[in-house]
Protein backbone atom coordinates (compact mmCIF):
# COMPACT_ATOMS: atom_id res chain seq x y z
CA UNK A 1 0.00 0.00 0.00
CA UNK A 2 1.23 3.50 -0.77
CA UNK A 3 2.10 5.25 2.46
CA UNK A 4 0.02 8.32 3.15
CA UNK A 5 3.18 10.29 3.94
CA UNK A 6 6.66 9.32 2.88
CA UNK A 7 9.89 11.20 3.46
CA UNK A 8 12.90 10.42 1.25
CA UNK A 9 16.14 11.96 2.43
CA UNK A 10 14.34 15.07 3.61
CA UNK A 11 16.88 17.36 5.24
CA UNK A 12 17.76 20.96 5.98
CA UNK A 13 21.11 22.52 6.69
CA UNK A 14 20.70 21.68 10.37
CA UNK A 15 18.47 18.58 10.56
CA UNK A 16 18.04 15.19 8.94
CA UNK A 17 18.20 13.43 6.60
CA UNK A 18 14.85 11.91 7.49
CA UNK A 19 13.39 8.78 5.87
CA UNK A 20 9.97 7.80 7.08
CA UNK A 21 6.78 6.18 5.87
CA UNK A 22 3.44 6.71 7.62
CA UNK A 23 0.48 4.57 6.54
CA UNK A 24 -3.11 5.87 6.43
CA UNK A 25 -4.46 5.79 9.97
CA UNK A 26 -1.02 5.43 11.47
CA UNK A 27 0.44 7.71 14.12
CA UNK A 28 4.20 8.03 14.38
CA UNK A 29 5.28 9.40 17.76
CA UNK A 30 8.54 11.28 18.10
CA UNK A 31 10.01 12.01 21.51
CA UNK A 32 13.36 13.43 22.48
CA UNK A 33 15.00 16.19 24.47
CA UNK A 34 14.29 19.86 23.80
CA UNK A 35 16.37 21.23 20.97
CA UNK A 36 16.91 17.80 19.44
CA UNK A 37 15.13 18.89 16.25
CA UNK A 38 11.59 17.54 16.68
CA UNK A 39 9.93 20.77 15.62
CA UNK A 40 12.44 21.15 12.78
CA UNK A 41 11.25 17.80 11.40
CA UNK A 42 7.62 18.92 11.38
CA UNK A 43 8.46 22.32 9.88
CA UNK A 44 10.51 20.62 7.21
CA UNK A 45 7.66 18.27 6.30
CA UNK A 46 5.23 21.21 6.14
CA UNK A 47 7.68 22.99 3.83
CA UNK A 48 8.04 25.92 6.23
CA UNK A 49 11.82 25.55 6.37
CA UNK A 50 13.92 25.26 3.22
CA UNK A 51 15.47 21.86 2.66
CA UNK A 52 16.49 19.15 0.24
CA UNK A 53 15.06 15.72 -0.41
CA UNK A 54 11.44 14.92 -1.13
CA UNK A 55 8.18 14.28 0.68
CA UNK A 56 5.25 12.38 -0.85
CA UNK A 57 1.57 12.50 -0.04
CA UNK A 58 -0.13 9.30 -1.27
CA UNK A 59 2.75 8.94 -3.71
CA UNK A 60 2.47 12.50 -5.04
CA UNK A 61 5.73 14.45 -4.71
CA UNK A 62 5.56 17.69 -2.75
CA UNK A 63 7.44 19.60 -5.44
CA UNK A 64 4.57 18.95 -7.87
CA UNK A 65 2.06 21.03 -5.91
CA UNK A 66 2.16 24.67 -4.81
CA UNK A 67 3.28 25.05 -1.19
CA UNK A 68 -0.05 26.39 0.15
CA UNK A 69 -1.93 23.41 -1.33
CA UNK A 70 0.61 21.03 0.26
CA UNK A 71 0.25 22.71 3.65
CA UNK A 72 -3.53 22.41 3.55
CA UNK A 73 -3.19 18.63 3.07
CA UNK A 74 -0.17 18.16 5.35
CA UNK A 75 -1.08 20.42 8.24
CA UNK A 76 1.33 21.58 10.89
CA UNK A 77 0.06 22.71 14.28
CA UNK A 78 2.85 24.57 16.08
CA UNK A 79 3.60 24.13 19.77
CA UNK A 80 3.09 27.84 20.25
CA UNK A 81 0.29 28.73 17.86
CA UNK A 82 0.22 32.17 16.28
CA UNK A 83 -2.82 34.47 16.12
CA UNK A 84 -3.15 37.16 13.51
CA UNK A 85 -6.25 38.96 14.73
CA UNK A 86 -7.43 40.13 18.15
CA UNK A 87 -10.73 38.32 17.71
CA UNK A 88 -10.78 34.55 18.10
CA UNK A 89 -13.59 34.25 15.54
CA UNK A 90 -11.44 35.80 12.79
CA UNK A 91 -9.30 32.65 12.79
CA UNK A 92 -12.18 30.37 11.83
CA UNK A 93 -13.76 30.55 8.37
CA UNK A 94 -16.60 28.27 9.55
CA UNK A 95 -17.48 29.50 13.03
CA UNK A 96 -20.34 27.06 13.62
CA UNK A 97 -18.18 24.05 12.81
CA UNK A 98 -15.41 25.50 14.97
CA UNK A 99 -17.73 25.87 17.96
CA UNK A 100 -18.96 22.30 17.59
CA UNK A 101 -15.45 20.88 17.40
CA UNK A 102 -14.27 23.14 20.25
CA UNK A 103 -17.07 21.65 22.35
CA UNK A 104 -15.76 18.11 21.85
CA UNK A 105 -12.40 19.35 23.14
CA UNK A 106 -14.00 20.66 26.31
CA UNK A 107 -13.99 24.33 25.30
CA UNK A 108 -16.91 26.68 25.89
CA UNK A 109 -18.19 27.83 22.46
CA UNK A 110 -18.46 31.38 23.84
CA UNK A 111 -14.65 31.53 23.85
CA UNK A 112 -14.81 31.86 20.09
CA UNK A 113 -16.72 35.12 20.35
CA UNK A 114 -14.12 36.74 22.61
CA UNK A 115 -10.64 38.19 22.16
CA UNK A 116 -7.50 36.06 21.81
CA UNK A 117 -5.97 37.94 24.74
CA UNK A 118 -8.47 36.40 27.14
CA UNK A 119 -7.54 32.80 26.21
CA UNK A 120 -5.37 30.64 28.49
CA UNK A 121 -2.42 28.74 27.03
CA UNK A 122 -4.40 25.49 27.11
CA UNK A 123 -7.36 27.10 25.36
CA UNK A 124 -5.10 28.51 22.67
CA UNK A 125 -3.55 25.14 22.10
CA UNK A 126 -6.89 23.41 21.68
CA UNK A 127 -8.30 26.16 19.45
CA UNK A 128 -5.21 25.88 17.26
CA UNK A 129 -5.92 22.15 16.97
CA UNK A 130 -9.51 23.00 16.02
CA UNK A 131 -8.51 25.33 13.18
CA UNK A 132 -6.04 22.74 11.86
CA UNK A 133 -8.56 19.89 12.02
CA UNK A 134 -11.24 21.98 10.29
CA UNK A 135 -9.08 22.08 7.15
CA UNK A 136 -9.61 18.34 6.98
CA UNK A 137 -5.96 17.52 6.23
CA UNK A 138 -4.70 14.12 5.15
CA UNK A 139 -1.68 14.33 7.42
CA UNK A 140 -1.47 15.93 10.86
CA UNK A 141 1.87 17.25 12.07
CA UNK A 142 1.22 17.83 15.76
CA UNK A 143 3.82 19.64 17.84
CA UNK A 144 3.19 19.11 21.56
CA UNK A 145 -0.59 19.23 21.10
CA UNK A 146 -1.27 18.50 24.78
CA UNK A 147 1.62 20.21 26.56
CA UNK A 148 -0.53 22.80 28.31
CA UNK A 149 -3.55 20.59 29.01
CA UNK A 150 -4.86 18.94 32.18
CA UNK A 151 -5.41 15.18 32.22
CA UNK A 152 -9.10 15.38 31.33
CA UNK A 153 -8.44 17.68 28.36
CA UNK A 154 -5.61 15.44 27.16
CA UNK A 155 -8.12 12.58 27.11
CA UNK A 156 -10.57 14.61 24.99
CA UNK A 157 -7.84 15.71 22.57
CA UNK A 158 -6.66 12.13 22.29
CA UNK A 159 -10.17 10.97 21.42
CA UNK A 160 -10.47 13.60 18.68
CA UNK A 161 -7.09 12.63 17.23
CA UNK A 162 -8.02 8.93 17.33
CA UNK A 163 -11.21 9.69 15.38
CA UNK A 164 -9.11 11.30 12.65
CA UNK A 165 -6.71 8.38 12.59
CA UNK A 166 -9.66 5.99 12.28
CA UNK A 167 -10.79 8.03 9.26
CA UNK A 168 -7.46 7.36 7.54
CA UNK A 169 -5.52 10.48 8.50
CA UNK A 170 -1.81 9.90 9.14
CA UNK A 171 -0.12 11.72 12.00
CA UNK A 172 3.36 12.62 13.13
CA UNK A 173 3.12 13.45 16.81
CA UNK A 174 5.93 15.27 18.58
CA UNK A 175 5.61 15.15 22.35
CA UNK A 176 7.44 15.13 25.63
CA UNK A 177 4.67 12.99 27.08
CA UNK A 178 6.02 9.42 26.77
CA UNK A 179 2.73 7.97 28.04
CA UNK A 180 0.79 9.77 25.28
CA UNK A 181 3.40 8.65 22.74
CA UNK A 182 2.93 5.06 23.93
CA UNK A 183 -0.87 5.29 23.74
CA UNK A 184 -1.13 6.94 20.33
CA UNK A 185 2.04 5.99 18.49
CA UNK A 186 2.02 2.76 16.49
CA UNK A 187 5.60 3.50 15.53
CA UNK A 188 7.87 5.36 17.94
CA UNK A 189 11.05 7.24 17.33
CA UNK A 190 13.46 9.28 19.39
CA UNK A 191 15.06 12.39 17.96
CA UNK A 192 18.75 12.30 18.70
CA UNK A 193 21.07 14.96 17.36
CA UNK A 194 18.55 15.89 14.70
CA UNK A 195 18.19 12.33 13.38
CA UNK A 196 15.33 9.88 13.91
CA UNK A 197 16.26 6.76 15.87
CA UNK A 198 13.72 3.93 16.41
CA UNK A 199 12.66 3.91 20.06
Amino acid at each position, binding site marked *: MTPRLRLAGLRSAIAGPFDLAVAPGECVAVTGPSGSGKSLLLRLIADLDPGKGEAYLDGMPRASVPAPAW*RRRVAYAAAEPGWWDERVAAHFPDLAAAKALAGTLGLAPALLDGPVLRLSTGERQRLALVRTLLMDPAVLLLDEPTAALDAASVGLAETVIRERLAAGVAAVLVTHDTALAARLGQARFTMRERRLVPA
Partner: protein
Amino acid sequence: MKPTISLSASDLAIAAVLILLDGALSVALGLGLHRQLAVAAARMVLQLLLIGVVLRSVFALASPPVTLLVILVMVGIAAREVAVRPEQRLRRYGNYMVGASAVAAATLLTSILALTTALRPSPWYDARYAIPLAGIVLGNVLNAASLALDALLGTVVRERAAIEAQLALGATIGAAMRRLVRAAIRRGLLPIVNQMSAAGVVTLPGIMTGQILAGLDPMEAVKYQILLMFLLAGGSGLGAVAAVLLAARRLTDARQRLRLDRLV
Protein backbone atom coordinates in the same frame (compact mmCIF):
# COMPACT_ATOMS: atom_id res chain seq x y z
CA MET B 1 9.35 90.40 -8.18
CA LYS B 2 10.49 92.57 -5.26
CA PRO B 3 14.22 92.81 -4.72
CA THR B 4 15.50 90.07 -2.47
CA ILE B 5 16.93 91.03 0.91
CA SER B 6 20.48 89.79 0.67
CA LEU B 7 21.93 88.23 3.83
CA SER B 8 25.44 89.11 4.97
CA ALA B 9 27.75 86.91 7.04
CA SER B 10 27.12 89.08 10.10
CA ASP B 11 23.33 88.56 9.69
CA LEU B 12 23.91 84.82 9.92
CA ALA B 13 26.26 85.25 12.86
CA ILE B 14 23.51 87.00 14.83
CA ALA B 15 21.14 84.10 14.15
CA ALA B 16 23.85 81.69 15.26
CA VAL B 17 23.56 83.18 18.74
CA LEU B 18 20.40 81.06 19.03
CA ILE B 19 22.50 77.89 18.66
CA LEU B 20 24.70 79.17 21.48
CA LEU B 21 21.52 79.66 23.50
CA ASP B 22 20.59 76.02 22.88
CA GLY B 23 24.07 74.99 23.98
CA ALA B 24 23.78 77.05 27.16
CA LEU B 25 20.41 75.43 27.90
CA SER B 26 21.92 72.00 27.38
CA VAL B 27 24.69 72.72 29.88
CA ALA B 28 22.37 74.38 32.40
CA LEU B 29 19.75 71.59 32.28
CA GLY B 30 22.27 68.75 31.97
CA LEU B 31 20.82 67.57 28.63
CA GLY B 32 24.23 66.42 27.43
CA LEU B 33 23.33 67.65 23.96
CA HIS B 34 25.72 70.59 23.50
CA ARG B 35 28.44 68.56 21.77
CA GLN B 36 26.03 66.96 19.32
CA LEU B 37 24.38 70.30 18.78
CA ALA B 38 27.67 72.00 17.95
CA VAL B 39 28.70 69.21 15.57
CA ALA B 40 25.30 69.18 13.88
CA ALA B 41 25.27 72.96 13.46
CA ALA B 42 28.79 72.97 12.05
CA ARG B 43 27.94 70.10 9.71
CA MET B 44 24.82 71.90 8.52
CA VAL B 45 26.75 75.08 7.71
CA LEU B 46 29.57 73.24 5.94
CA GLN B 47 27.27 70.93 3.99
CA LEU B 48 25.07 73.79 2.83
CA LEU B 49 28.01 76.01 1.85
CA LEU B 50 29.51 73.10 -0.04
CA ILE B 51 26.28 72.34 -1.89
CA GLY B 52 25.95 76.06 -2.66
CA VAL B 53 29.35 76.03 -4.35
CA VAL B 54 28.60 72.76 -6.14
CA LEU B 55 25.20 73.94 -7.37
CA ARG B 56 26.64 77.21 -8.60
CA SER B 57 29.22 75.42 -10.75
CA VAL B 58 26.81 72.69 -11.90
CA PHE B 59 24.29 75.33 -12.99
CA ALA B 60 27.06 77.17 -14.82
CA LEU B 61 28.18 73.97 -16.56
CA ALA B 62 24.63 73.16 -17.74
CA SER B 63 25.77 69.69 -18.72
CA PRO B 64 23.13 66.90 -18.61
CA PRO B 65 25.61 64.13 -17.62
CA VAL B 66 26.88 66.24 -14.69
CA THR B 67 23.31 66.99 -13.60
CA LEU B 68 22.46 63.30 -13.73
CA LEU B 69 25.60 62.44 -11.79
CA VAL B 70 24.74 64.90 -9.02
CA ILE B 71 21.22 63.48 -8.76
CA LEU B 72 22.53 59.91 -8.69
CA VAL B 73 24.94 60.78 -5.87
CA MET B 74 22.01 62.28 -3.95
CA VAL B 75 19.94 59.15 -4.62
CA GLY B 76 22.83 57.00 -3.40
CA ILE B 77 23.12 58.91 -0.13
CA ALA B 78 19.35 58.70 0.41
CA ALA B 79 19.36 54.97 -0.36
CA ARG B 80 22.01 54.45 2.29
CA GLU B 81 19.91 56.34 4.83
CA VAL B 82 16.92 54.12 4.05
CA ALA B 83 19.09 51.02 4.39
CA VAL B 84 20.68 51.79 7.74
CA ARG B 85 17.58 53.05 9.56
CA PRO B 86 15.94 49.67 10.39
CA GLU B 87 17.39 47.56 13.18
CA GLN B 88 17.13 44.47 11.00
CA ARG B 89 19.16 44.00 7.86
CA LEU B 90 18.33 41.88 4.88
CA ARG B 91 21.22 39.67 3.90
CA ARG B 92 23.54 40.34 0.97
CA TYR B 93 23.08 44.09 1.13
CA GLY B 94 19.33 43.57 0.80
CA ASN B 95 18.52 46.81 2.60
CA TYR B 96 20.75 48.75 0.23
CA MET B 97 19.26 47.12 -2.86
CA VAL B 98 15.73 47.73 -1.60
CA GLY B 99 16.54 51.29 -0.52
CA ALA B 100 18.28 52.20 -3.77
CA SER B 101 15.59 50.74 -6.03
CA ALA B 102 12.72 52.30 -4.10
CA VAL B 103 14.30 55.72 -3.72
CA ALA B 104 15.59 55.93 -7.29
CA ALA B 105 12.35 54.77 -8.92
CA ALA B 106 10.10 57.01 -6.83
CA THR B 107 12.29 60.09 -7.15
CA LEU B 108 13.04 59.83 -10.85
CA LEU B 109 9.45 59.07 -11.82
CA THR B 110 7.99 61.93 -9.80
CA SER B 111 10.65 64.46 -10.75
CA ILE B 112 10.57 63.68 -14.45
CA LEU B 113 6.78 63.89 -14.44
CA ALA B 114 6.92 67.34 -12.85
CA LEU B 115 9.71 68.59 -15.11
CA THR B 116 8.05 67.48 -18.31
CA THR B 117 4.50 68.57 -17.48
CA ALA B 118 3.93 71.19 -14.78
CA LEU B 119 7.25 73.04 -14.60
CA ARG B 120 8.55 72.60 -18.15
CA PRO B 121 11.83 74.50 -17.95
CA SER B 122 13.73 74.49 -21.22
CA PRO B 123 15.40 72.15 -21.58
CA TRP B 124 13.31 70.06 -19.16
CA TYR B 125 16.48 68.66 -17.54
CA ASP B 126 17.84 72.14 -16.74
CA ALA B 127 20.02 71.66 -13.66
CA ARG B 128 18.60 74.76 -11.96
CA TYR B 129 15.21 73.00 -11.76
CA ALA B 130 16.07 69.32 -11.88
CA ILE B 131 18.51 69.23 -8.95
CA PRO B 132 16.53 71.18 -6.33
CA LEU B 133 13.34 69.38 -7.33
CA ALA B 134 14.93 65.94 -7.14
CA GLY B 135 16.41 66.98 -3.80
CA ILE B 136 13.17 67.90 -2.14
CA VAL B 137 11.33 64.88 -3.56
CA LEU B 138 14.23 62.71 -2.44
CA GLY B 139 14.01 63.97 1.14
CA ASN B 140 10.39 62.92 1.38
CA VAL B 141 10.83 59.64 -0.46
CA LEU B 142 13.70 58.86 1.90
CA ASN B 143 11.52 59.54 4.90
CA ALA B 144 8.58 57.48 3.63
CA ALA B 145 10.68 54.55 2.43
CA SER B 146 12.78 54.30 5.58
CA LEU B 147 9.77 54.47 7.91
CA ALA B 148 7.94 51.86 5.85
CA LEU B 149 10.93 49.53 5.60
CA ASP B 150 11.64 49.85 9.31
CA ALA B 151 8.01 49.08 10.13
CA LEU B 152 7.96 45.99 7.91
CA LEU B 153 11.25 44.50 9.09
CA GLY B 154 10.39 45.21 12.73
CA THR B 155 6.92 43.69 12.66
CA VAL B 156 7.78 40.70 10.51
CA VAL B 157 10.10 39.42 13.24
CA ARG B 158 7.58 40.08 15.99
CA GLU B 159 4.71 38.54 14.02
CA ARG B 160 6.54 35.45 12.86
CA ALA B 161 4.24 33.02 14.70
CA ALA B 162 1.14 34.73 13.32
CA ILE B 163 2.44 34.67 9.74
CA GLU B 164 3.57 31.06 9.91
CA ALA B 165 0.29 30.01 11.51
CA GLN B 166 -1.48 31.32 8.42
CA LEU B 167 1.01 29.63 6.09
CA ALA B 168 0.54 26.34 7.95
CA LEU B 169 -3.20 26.66 7.35
CA GLY B 170 -2.60 26.94 3.62
CA ALA B 171 -2.58 30.72 3.17
CA THR B 172 -0.40 32.17 0.42
CA ILE B 173 2.53 34.26 1.62
CA GLY B 174 0.80 37.31 0.14
CA ALA B 175 -2.30 36.76 2.24
CA ALA B 176 -0.28 35.93 5.35
CA MET B 177 1.74 39.13 5.09
CA ARG B 178 -1.00 41.44 3.85
CA ARG B 179 -1.69 43.04 7.21
CA LEU B 180 1.96 43.79 7.86
CA VAL B 181 2.52 45.10 4.34
CA ARG B 182 -0.45 47.42 4.62
CA ALA B 183 0.54 48.68 8.06
CA ALA B 184 4.10 49.33 6.89
CA ILE B 185 3.00 51.31 3.82
CA ARG B 186 0.57 53.28 5.95
CA ARG B 187 3.42 54.08 8.36
CA GLY B 188 5.47 55.44 5.47
CA LEU B 189 2.65 57.67 4.24
CA LEU B 190 1.69 59.17 7.59
CA PRO B 191 4.21 62.05 7.53
CA ILE B 192 3.11 63.38 4.15
CA VAL B 193 -0.56 63.08 5.12
CA ASN B 194 0.16 65.04 8.30
CA GLN B 195 2.21 67.54 6.35
CA MET B 196 -0.60 68.15 3.87
CA SER B 197 -3.27 68.46 6.59
CA ALA B 198 -1.20 70.91 8.59
CA ALA B 199 0.05 72.93 5.61
CA GLY B 200 -0.93 76.56 5.86
CA VAL B 201 -2.89 76.06 9.08
CA VAL B 202 -0.38 74.76 11.58
CA THR B 203 2.77 75.31 9.53
CA LEU B 204 3.86 77.40 6.62
CA PRO B 205 5.87 74.96 4.54
CA GLY B 206 9.57 75.75 4.34
CA ILE B 207 9.78 76.14 0.59
CA MET B 208 6.86 78.54 0.51
CA THR B 209 8.24 80.54 3.41
CA GLY B 210 11.59 80.71 1.65
CA GLN B 211 10.01 81.94 -1.57
CA ILE B 212 7.96 84.59 0.23
CA LEU B 213 11.02 85.75 2.15
CA ALA B 214 12.88 85.89 -1.15
CA GLY B 215 10.25 88.30 -2.46
CA LEU B 216 7.83 86.10 -4.44
CA ASP B 217 4.13 86.93 -4.44
CA PRO B 218 2.37 84.72 -1.81
CA MET B 219 -0.16 83.34 -4.32
CA GLU B 220 2.66 82.26 -6.65
CA ALA B 221 4.49 80.71 -3.71
CA VAL B 222 1.29 78.89 -2.69
CA LYS B 223 0.81 77.42 -6.16
CA TYR B 224 4.38 76.16 -6.12
CA GLN B 225 3.81 74.64 -2.72
CA ILE B 226 0.64 72.86 -3.82
CA LEU B 227 2.44 71.40 -6.80
CA LEU B 228 5.28 70.30 -4.54
CA MET B 229 2.95 68.68 -1.99
CA PHE B 230 1.37 66.60 -4.75
CA LEU B 231 4.80 65.57 -5.97
CA LEU B 232 5.93 64.71 -2.46
CA ALA B 233 2.78 62.71 -1.77
CA GLY B 234 3.22 60.78 -5.01
CA GLY B 235 6.89 60.19 -4.35
CA SER B 236 6.23 59.09 -0.77
CA GLY B 237 3.58 56.65 -1.91
CA LEU B 238 5.76 55.14 -4.62
CA GLY B 239 8.77 55.00 -2.31
CA ALA B 240 6.94 53.34 0.58
CA VAL B 241 5.17 50.81 -1.64
CA ALA B 242 8.34 49.92 -3.53
CA ALA B 243 10.44 49.57 -0.37
CA VAL B 244 7.87 47.37 1.36
CA LEU B 245 7.07 45.14 -1.62
CA LEU B 246 10.73 44.67 -2.55
CA ALA B 247 11.63 43.83 1.05
CA ALA B 248 8.66 41.48 1.41
CA ARG B 249 9.74 39.66 -1.73
CA ARG B 250 13.17 39.10 -0.24
CA LEU B 251 11.59 37.64 2.88
CA THR B 252 9.99 34.80 0.97
CA ASP B 253 10.91 32.21 -1.66
CA ALA B 254 9.41 30.12 -4.44
CA ARG B 255 7.80 27.79 -1.87
CA GLN B 256 6.10 30.73 -0.12
CA ARG B 257 8.01 30.33 3.13
CA LEU B 258 8.75 33.13 5.57
CA ARG B 259 12.53 33.42 5.29
CA LEU B 260 13.57 35.23 8.44
CA ASP B 261 16.96 33.57 8.02
CA ARG B 262 17.51 36.23 5.38
CA LEU B 263 17.54 38.86 8.10
CA VAL B 264 20.69 39.48 10.08
